[in-house]
């Protein structure tokens, strides 16, 4: 009898645990990449950035070189902004604005420059200019986290 009650409690706990987890702090993952685009040379490092180069070329940007400076997957929460240190000394700030019907909205702010609100989706990336650096342009690339 006692063990039956224990098993029932355990089952109830297991059933309710996802709900409890959901009730906790909402978080979303976002891949954030910092790329330096410039006309110095024609290096594309790593080679995966060739797609980004092509995307920019199609939009009439004439950058010849794309170099990845950092790549990280961040976990964004609503209460506390997450900062990404850019090579030019600026701290980009990312924050989860909300989560509605499974779609998260994230605010990315680059002080003294621009702020962007982005609805996250499974496809595409958002390329945000993040200031100048060593003769090129820093670009913040927001993408879905790798599976």
């Amino acid at each position, binding site marked *: 009898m006692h063990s039956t009650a224990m098993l029932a409690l355990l089952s109830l706990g297991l059933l309710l645990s996802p709900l409890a987890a959901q009730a906790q702090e909402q978080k979303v993952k976002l891949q954030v990449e910092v790329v330096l685009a410039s006309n110095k040379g024609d290096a594309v490092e790593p080679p995966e950035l060739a797609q980004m180069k092509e995307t920019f070329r199609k939009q009439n940007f004439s950058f010849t070189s794309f170099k990845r400076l950092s790549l990280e997957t961040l976990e964004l929460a609503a209460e506390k902004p997450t900062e990404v240190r850019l090579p030019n000394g600026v701290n980009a700030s990312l924050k989860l604005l909300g989560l509605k019907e499974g779609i*998260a909205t994230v605010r990315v702010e680059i002080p003294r420059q621009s702020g962007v609100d982005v609805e996250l989706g*499974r496809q595409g*990336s958002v390329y945000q*200019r993040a200031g100048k650096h060593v003769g090129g*342009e820093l670009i913040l690339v927001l993408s879905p986290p790798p599976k």
Partner: protein
Amino acid sequence: MAGNPACERFIPLLSPYIDGEISPTERVNIERHLSACKACTGRAADLRAESGLLRVGLDMAVDEVDFKDFTQKVMARVTPEKPPLLERLRLSLSEMFLYQRTAMVSSLATAAVLMLVAVPLLLGSRAPTGYAGERMTVQAVRTYEPAKVAPVVMETDNGSTIIWLVDQDSHSHGASPALGGGDEAQSDELEMEEAPLGNVPQKTLPAKKDDPAPKGGSL
């Protein structure tokens, strides 16, 4: 001991005979001997009397015993203390593997195959938290002081979005050979190609009014 030599054979069998522990053939032989031997008949009678006395003595002893809660007391002694839940689970599993090994192994193999098939399917189809949307969508763009720039939002054919900040001075002056910073001197202002962004979709996004610092927000 026995005058009749035949008695020596039958005397050891008398006690089992009285207790009914003898085969029918031997029983017939003993009864035949008893009918002819008074000494053995007397011995058998003595044994019966002893047996009766013993029974009466045992009955009297049993009457003196208190059988109240006898069942509970016996069951309490023969039933071991209930082991903890985990121990019982472990025992159940080990017994299942011991007595229903084939069924258990086949069930586990089926479950493993199902897991191997289902988990990648579920994980593959399930988008991470917050990614229910089809594609990344820019909702709003704002600029901050002291940057004198205007945001340009370009949607690409692969579902991506480029947010570029065009220097308002160079924009208003209509300057521009090549978009994309070259050396340090050039990178101070954003320059456009001859047909800058002319054939690509651009959109104007509202600047947020609730933000203290924003300026601009349109193309």
